[in-house]
């Protein structure tokens, strides 16, 4: 476990390359938006971050089910890693979204479904960490973590739907421009390309970070086992 697998080093390289390309596309390739101006460029990475957040949540829920069925602790590490990464990326998405909102239509916060649901996800994650913190037995901690990850993964889409029925001012991003929702904008082909490239890049970033975080998790588990053994 000590030495870093070659695949990971290669993935690191690919990730960095993709990331730099994406940044280049955002700042130089994508055109300037006609109404919002420069701040619209934030949108590409803002959505990519939210996308990673959702990915992480999904991975955690699946890892949770896997742990409950197999009992192999490595699934618990996968779940915890996915949620930690998702937490960081959702946070970035929320703050960048807030800055974009401020720059585009003047308010720091919009109670629209996507932003609100992301904020609720953060609270769910906080609850997840608090739950784990309150349990000493590693097996129970993994089990309860898995259950909670699963329950919340089911509840969050329902939350999103209910808020959406409740209200919406988040922009409609793809296709029809001027479709009633405040702040919507048309995406030209170059914008679309940059957008999709950002999503792909961030998905790879997620995979790369997940791998690293899982390795960290395995180290932590080994350390905890040794600690329990030697400090009896």
């Amino acid at each position, binding site marked *: 476990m000590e030495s870093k697998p070659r695949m990971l080093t290669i993935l690191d390289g690919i990730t960095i390359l993709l990331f730099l390309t994406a940044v280049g596309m955002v700042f130089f390739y994508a055109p300037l938006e006609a109404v*919002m*101006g420069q701040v619209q460029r934030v949108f590409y990475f803002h959505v990519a971050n939210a996308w990673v957040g959702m990915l992480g949540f999904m991975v955690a829920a699946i890892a949770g089910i896997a742990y409950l069925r197999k009992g192999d602790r490595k699934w618990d590490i996968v779940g915890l890693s996915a949620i930690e990464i998702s937490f960081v990326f959702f946070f970035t998405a929320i703050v*960048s979204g807030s800055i*974009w909102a401020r720059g585009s239509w003047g308010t720091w916060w919009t109670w629209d479904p996507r932003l609100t649901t992301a904020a609720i996800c953060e609270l769910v994650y906080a609850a997840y960490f608090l739950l784990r913190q309150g349990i000493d037995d590693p097996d129970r901690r993994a089990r309860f973590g898995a259950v909670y990850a699963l329950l919340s993964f089911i509840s969050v889409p329902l939350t999103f739907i209910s808020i959406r029925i409740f209200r919406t001012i988040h922009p409609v991003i793809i296709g029809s421009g001027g479709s009633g929702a405040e702040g919507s904008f048309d995406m030209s082909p170059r914008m679309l390309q940059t957008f999709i490239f950002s999503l792909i890049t961030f998905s790879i970033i997620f995979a790369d970070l997940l791998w*690293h975080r899982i390795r*960290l998790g395995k180290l932590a588990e080994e*350390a905890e086992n040794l600690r329990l053994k030697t400090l009896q």
Partner: protein
Amino acid sequence: MINTLLLQAPAETTRYLVAGYTVIFGIMSLYIISLVVRTRNLKRQLVMLRELDQERK
């Protein structure tokens, strides 16, 4: 192109762009740094713990 000239020029929002990307790059960097630091600490701890374990045997 001509349309943009006829209508208003886009809003001057560069500072929000800067703020937004500072946040994005900043948080990502901080997280990666935290991963590096935690890994290093754990490796150090493991070395110590393994020594302790050997001594006990």
